[in-house]
């Protein structure tokens, strides 16, 4: 290398190689096709990705500022079962409005690609205030500077930044449409209880699960007064009373183990109750055995007969029209409003059995927001069993099965059609046993 100008050659080639790489790896894929702005939903529809609202954009800045993205990645890979853990695999169009991107390189905490809609805002406020309130084993930092003082109930008041951050988190993954309706059934597992031969051992195992997962909201005595409860609009279930909303048994009855299993697995939409599908089936069954020890009812009573859900009749305009009559006759609008927005005249006065204010469901959010589940059968079930402990009664004695189905179809007409999980006869039979 005696050439005196080897230095210029080196620098020239350095720039050429780097330029070639930037062009081929960074620019060519970008220029080669239109910048992807669309997403294919779970139903195979092509939809436009939605930009961030000003509030969400502000929340994204907080997310960057606090360094959330060093621990939480934002893409679901098509390998190692990630789509069963977090939701559908990521698509290019979902990131159309991300500048800068937040893919991340490390998962010290879980991936947040599909975090939007997983739990109610309340959970996030409690979690950001002190993560160990809701997840005792969490190693996430607290963010007390996102709160200013406490309100009359002792609940820390979120700052505008905190509100924006939660709005951003709730937006994550929602460009894909209502994918959660399908996902809720993922890894639900067997509906046949794995009750341990050694019942006492099972209860002890369940206690461990409870102390690590449930205690933050439901409290160590099951009284629904965990540390995080103050944050929650929909208060945690009080296990000591043995009254449960979501059952397949008649009004007033205790639920079956399978009912509790289903609630734990899928969570309760629109509340802070997360879906626990990542827990092993065994752990879910164990914790049910432990929860049942909180109330004498499970010793003294046996669950009533599981209600029968007949096959769904065709959802026709006539059925919807008949349903509207039922809706009017049963005075559903009294609480849920004539437009199904949950704003009926009595809505502000409603209280649950424990005296907490309780909001009637807003039907315009559709199936993915229903406590009981996203399938029409779930709604039928709720009409038949009522939601014990709330003002929502059972209509089993007032409506015959055809009327209940008509009412289901009318209520469905309030929400976006793609938010309901429509099951085939076969699937419905498998899931609801008729």
């Amino acid at each position, binding site marked *: *290398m*005696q050439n*005196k100008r080897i*230095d*210029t050659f*080196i*620098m020239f080639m*350095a720039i050429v*190689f*780097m330029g*070639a*790489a*930037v062009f*081929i*790896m*960074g620019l060519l*894929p970008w220029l080669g096709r239109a*910048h*992807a702005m669309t997403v294919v939903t779970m139903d195979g529809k092509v939809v436009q990705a939605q930009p961030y609202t000003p509030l969400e954009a502000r929340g994204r800045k907080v997310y960057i*500022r*606090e*360094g*959330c*993205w*060093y621990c939480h*990645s934002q*893409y679901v*890979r*098509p*390998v*190692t*079962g990630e789509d*069963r*853990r977090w939701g559908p695999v*990521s698509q*290019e169009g*979902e*990131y*159309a*409005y*991300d*500048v*800068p*991107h*937040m*893919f991340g*390189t*490390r998962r*010290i*905490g879980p991936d947040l690609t599909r975090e939007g809609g997983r739990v109610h805002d309340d959970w996030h406020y409690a979690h950001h205030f002190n*993560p*160990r309130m809701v*997840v005792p*084993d*969490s*190693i996430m*930092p607290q963010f007390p500077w996102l709160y200013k003082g406490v309100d009359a109930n002792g609940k820390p008041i979120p700052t505008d930044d905190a509100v924006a951050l939660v709005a951003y988190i709730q937006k994550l993954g929602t460009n894909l449409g209502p994918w959660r309706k399908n996902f809720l059934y993922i890894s639900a597992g067997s509906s046949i209880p794995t009750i341990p031969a050694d019942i006492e051992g099972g209860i002890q195992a369940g206690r461990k699960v409870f102390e690590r997962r449930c205690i933050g909201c439901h409290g160590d005595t099951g009284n629904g007064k965990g540390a995080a409860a103050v944050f929650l609009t929909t208060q945690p279930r009080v296990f000591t009373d043995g009254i449960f909303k979501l059952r397949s048994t008649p009004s007033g009855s205790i639920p079956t183990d399978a009912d509790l299993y289903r609630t734990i697995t899928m969570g309760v939409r629109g509340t802070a109750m997360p879906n626990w599908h*990542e*827990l*092993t089936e065994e752990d879910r069954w164990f914790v049910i055995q432990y929860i049942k020890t909180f109330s004498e009812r499970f010793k003294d009573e046996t669950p009533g007969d599981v209600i029968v859900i007949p096959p769904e009749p065709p959802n026709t305009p006539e059925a919807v029209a008949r349903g509207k009559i039922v809706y009017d006759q049963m005075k559903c609008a009294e609480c849920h409003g004539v437009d199904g927005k949950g704003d009926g005249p009595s809505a502000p006065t409603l209280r649950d059995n424990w005296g907490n204010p309780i909001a009637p469901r807003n039907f315009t959010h559709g199936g993915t927001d229903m406590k009981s589940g996203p399938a029409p059968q779930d709604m039928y079930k709720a009409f038949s069993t009522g939601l014990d402990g709330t003002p929502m009664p059972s209509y089993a004695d007032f409506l015959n099965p055809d009327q209940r189905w008509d009412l289901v179809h009318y209520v469905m007409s309030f929400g976006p059609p793609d938010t309901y999980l429509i099951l085939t006869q076969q699937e419905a039979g498998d899931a609801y046993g008729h």
Partner: protein
Amino acid sequence: MAASQALLENEPLVDAKLVKQWLFWGIIWTMIFPLVGVVVSIKFNYPDWLGQTSWLTWGRIRPMHVNGVIFGAFSTTFFGLVFYMVPKLTGIRMVGEKMGYWCLWLWNIGIVLGSYSLMAGYQKGIEAGDYALWADVPLIIAFIVLTYMVIATIVQRKEKLLYVSLYYVAGAMVWTAINFPLGNILLPYWVPGVNNAALHGLYIHYIVGLWITPAGLALIYFFLPLACKNPLYSHKLSLVGFWSIALFYPFVGIHHYLYSPIPNWTQTIAIVTSMMLIIPVWTVTQNFFGTMMGNWRSLQESFVAKFCIMGSIFYFLGCFQGSTEALRGMQQLTHFTDFVISHSHLTIFGTFVVWTMAGQYYVWPRVTGHALWSKSLATWHFWLIAVSFSVMAGVLTLMGLLQGTMWMDSVEFVDTVVAMKPYWFIRTLSGVGMDIGIFLFMVNMFMTAVAPSPLPETEREKAFVPAAAD
């Protein structure tokens, strides 16, 4: 001071004061930013520790550690060594020497402002380019001036033969003078969606692959032959290393985002070029060990050689790990885990920061004119780093494999976090060990500067040993 003054006159090419100032700040940053890493790591086990203040939250000081080690600890020391090495290799004084002093202050202001911008919540969300734009401005200006100084010196050199270190220095400066401004000014604000991720993947890897790697290799190619008093094993082989790095490294960045929605074919190119990096890594390693051949005794005598060889071993391990990590099958298991963190520490700290320490042990006594204050402190430094860092690299690799396996096995997420807690504790202990080593290094260097025992005749500057004619 007469003795040291005479010594400096023996080195008329080097502005000893300039080198000393840069190296001084290099030592300071090498002390501070790894220590920030220990604070970050303690929070894994004690998340509420220093957790009530926004300025000290994990998510704000983690980037302070990462950027601080890259731009503070490594880069500041590197520039100090450049001001020693480049005049020696070109046969002329640095072009625009006086500007070097201004650059030091600009550079330090950039590091301080940058760290402040992260703690105060002004960061911009680009990993390895996290500092706020206004903190980048002094860094960018300083870097461009430094690039001009180095390139102009190389172009005007008296020495005909362009030694391999200068290849690497020239490449590193040119690449980074392009990459650093583009990555910090255009990328965070103008490029949307997955293209942002793709270009950011390239940016990160240009920081590690086109800045730290060539800069670090420039150092060891210079200091290793001096330390073991052997000529370089093969200059031709070293050029194979340079050109293969120059060709392959620019393409590998997308391997940070395998299985992401970034177009698959670019991922494949990134994997292939990542595997091709085995060529430079193995030739470079061969060259280092070949250079030591016949004079392994120098390992006993010279701390420069000790740190060069320790860094070379970690280089070989870390870079081979990096290539395999880029394979899809491997990445299914290891990506997003501490395996990645073990790789970044093996390369950035285990290799390149350790090589800057080797350079410090060579240059600091020469520019201060004093013999190394304490050999026993230096020995403690060496062994604390060697043992603690081996533990850290090992435990992080193990954690990555464990947690990755648990994830593949569908274990509930928080359970996999809980399972890591004891290992994180060991990692913190190993980090404390490293920081004690660095502290002893700092004490030793400062005492060398202030306790005047003149450099013995035998350790005085020799003429640079040229490469074997090949």
